[in-house]
């Protein structure tokens, strides 16, 4: 019997990630073309529509970058935790917590002028996200409780809290009894940057790119790297693992919370149940495609944003949403496979007799 296994390459593929990504993308598009032809659509029309609407015009770019904001921040949140070997599966809930924090400020101080209100809302969003990560961070750093379970389950808590708020105390008195929160004050909308993109794009870019740079150049980032790769080394050189685990997970929640704040002040006119829209979970894919490196998140988020925007736009060509989802998934799968194969290779090995040491 023949066995296959993945072995890490001694040196990553020449051209590295970029080449692997392009190859993965081409293969995915080829499979997608077969799917489109089988369902009676012209792949050329669909693909060119996909490209045009995401990257073919300033307006397309504005939509793509706007989508890259929550994807990038959620991706960064996951990657930051990931660089310490932790899995923050709770970005979805932390986005919601951030949006709740922001909406709360708008409720208690709706008269504040925009330049004060917006930073206050974004600040509250950061705190909201951090707050939701606080429990898992304490449990992990003090008691060694697995953060995957705690962060994952807090998503459910967050969705129920927002549902309670819009059904109960925060229900819009003018909303005809629909479970919606009141409209946000007008001056809380983030100013427009270009076309449909708002200043949130700049804020997210500074945070995502800035953090990537900082993590790779600062002493703090270096400590993070050490602590992430070897606990023993970290303790030998005097890094407190406890403090590191705690700070990093809370920071991760804070970044996701910011995404919720920007979604609220940028894309939404009021707090709605679906404010996180799955971005927190997609953030895990973003981080995985960036190989858990904060520095790779920005590029991946923009690429994935373009795929999503393009994928949504082709519905107007008569492509059903299910087919469009399959296409997006194929592209993701291709890119993810490529990311793996740029660092690993497949080797055939003879079957290992049972009982033998591997």
């Amino acid at each position: 019997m023949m066995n296959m296994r993945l072995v890490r390459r001694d040196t990553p593929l020449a051209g590295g990630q970029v080449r692997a990504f392009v190859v993965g993308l081409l293969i995915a598009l080829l499979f997608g073309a077969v799917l489109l032809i089988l369902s009676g659509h012209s792949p050329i029309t669909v693909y060119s529509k996909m490209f045009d609407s995401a990257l073919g015009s300033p307006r397309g770019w504005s939509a793509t970058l706007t989508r890259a904001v929550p994807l990038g921040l959620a991706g960064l949140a996951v990657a930051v935790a990931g660089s310490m070997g932790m899995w923050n599966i709770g970005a979805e809930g932390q986005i919601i917590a951030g949006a709740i924090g922001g909406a709360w400020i708008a409720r208690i101080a709706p008269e504040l002028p925009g330049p004060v209100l917006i930073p206050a809302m974004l600040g509250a969003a950061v705190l909201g996200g951090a707050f939701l990560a606080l429990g898992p961070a304490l449990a992990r750093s003090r008691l060694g409780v697995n953060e995957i379970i705690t962060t994952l389950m807090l998503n459910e808590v967050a969705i129920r809290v927002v549902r309670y708020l819009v059904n109960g105390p925060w229900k819009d008195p003018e909303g005809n009894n629909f479970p919606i929160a009141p409209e946000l004050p007008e001056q809380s909308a983030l100013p427009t940057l270009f076309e449909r993109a708002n200043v949130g794009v700049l804020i997210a870019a500074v945070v995502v790119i800035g953090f990537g740079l900082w993590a790779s150049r600062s002493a703090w980032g270096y400590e993070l790297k050490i602590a992430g790769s070897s606990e023993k080394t970290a303790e030998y050189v005097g890094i407190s693992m406890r403090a590191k685990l705690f700070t990093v997970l809370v920071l991760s929640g804070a970044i996701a919370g910011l995404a919720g704040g920007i979604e609220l002040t940028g894309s939404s006119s009021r707090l709605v149940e679906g404010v996180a829209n799955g971005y927190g979970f997609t953030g895990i894919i973003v981080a995985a495609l960036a190989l858990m490196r904060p520095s790779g998140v920005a590029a991946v988020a923009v690429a994935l944003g373009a795929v999503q925007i393009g994928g949504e736009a082709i519905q107007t060509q008569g492509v059903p949403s299910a087919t469009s989802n399959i296409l997006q998934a194929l592209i993701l799968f291709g890119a993810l496979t490529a990311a793996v194969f740029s660092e690993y290779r497949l080797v055939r090995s003879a079957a290992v007799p049972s009982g033998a040491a591997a």
Partner: protein
Amino acid sequence: MTSMRKALIALLTMIALIASACGGDDASDTKAAFVMVAPVGDAGWNFMHDQGRLGAAEAAGVETAFVENIPEGGAEFDNAVQNFIDEGYNVIFTTSFGYMDATETFAAANPDVRFEHISGFKMNDTNFGNSFGRMYQPRYIAGMAAGAATESNTIGYVAAFPIPEVIRGINAFALGVANTNPDAVVEVAWTSTWFDPGVEGNAAQALIDAGADVLTMHQDSTATGQAITDAGGTFIGYHSDMSEQVGAYLTAPVWDWTNRYADVIEEAKAGEFTPSAWWGGMADGVVDIAIPDSSPVSGEMDAVKQSILDGDFDVFDQGTIADQDGTVIIDNGQVQVELRDPFDDSVVVAGPGDEVHDGVLLTMNFFVENVVGSVSG
């Protein structure tokens, strides 16, 4: 100063030129687009809007397109609508309540595009209207069938949210029940969701356990129908003819958006932008009911349907309508008590002696006598 002004004028001229170039002279080219909140293949709300789209496309002879699965209150909706506008679609239907605010914003920013929002309450004077149907009319007739079908005299009603639209439907249905069976009660179970087959099925089962042998619903899935089929009872559907999906199906009040959509598109085609808050009834064809031959009261149902079509009968404009405490609210089409807007207690909608106008129906916030349940959810 002068040079800056010149530059400004030049800039404005350029913008105007570009705008006029983009504006296009193909205004006669009407294309209609639809935004749906869930996949259209669900036999419910979205399915009926897609049927309406297909019918209107044929009737008005225009190109149509749709996007489905677009969440409410997010950037995806904005992208979808902007894509349609960029592609030259100039009549846009947004078919879910939660699209209301965003549709309003788009209407203000795109004066050349006509927007029609379904089931909301906002509009403007130029290019943004809303449409809905008087579903309470066929619900009354469905209630007549339910009253005749029940043996336990308990009819279950699985309902989404305690908003006036749903409450009105429950009351109309219960009045229809009372017409054919004065001893029967309508028991309401709230789900707090439009679409969740699991929750809907549980609510249906709770009603069956409470003794209901006939169920109906104001939901988007057929879960209620499945539960009552399993229990060997009778199902009265909603949205569409569900006879193929549900074994226990008897009848259903249904939507038919074809005529309304065709009318809006024709108006836009003719260049007549007259937004309105359109609330059509059975006579307009937007709502209807199939009268089952198997029902022992099919003759009476036919007669009521005919008098609704003729304008001789209105569900809330006849008889004595009392609330759950027995207080008479409406008597022979005259309001008997002071009715206030449930969302703004300072607004008096109608007082004693007033006629039952649409405002009374649109703010309805009480249950009629033979309903078991609470309007506060």
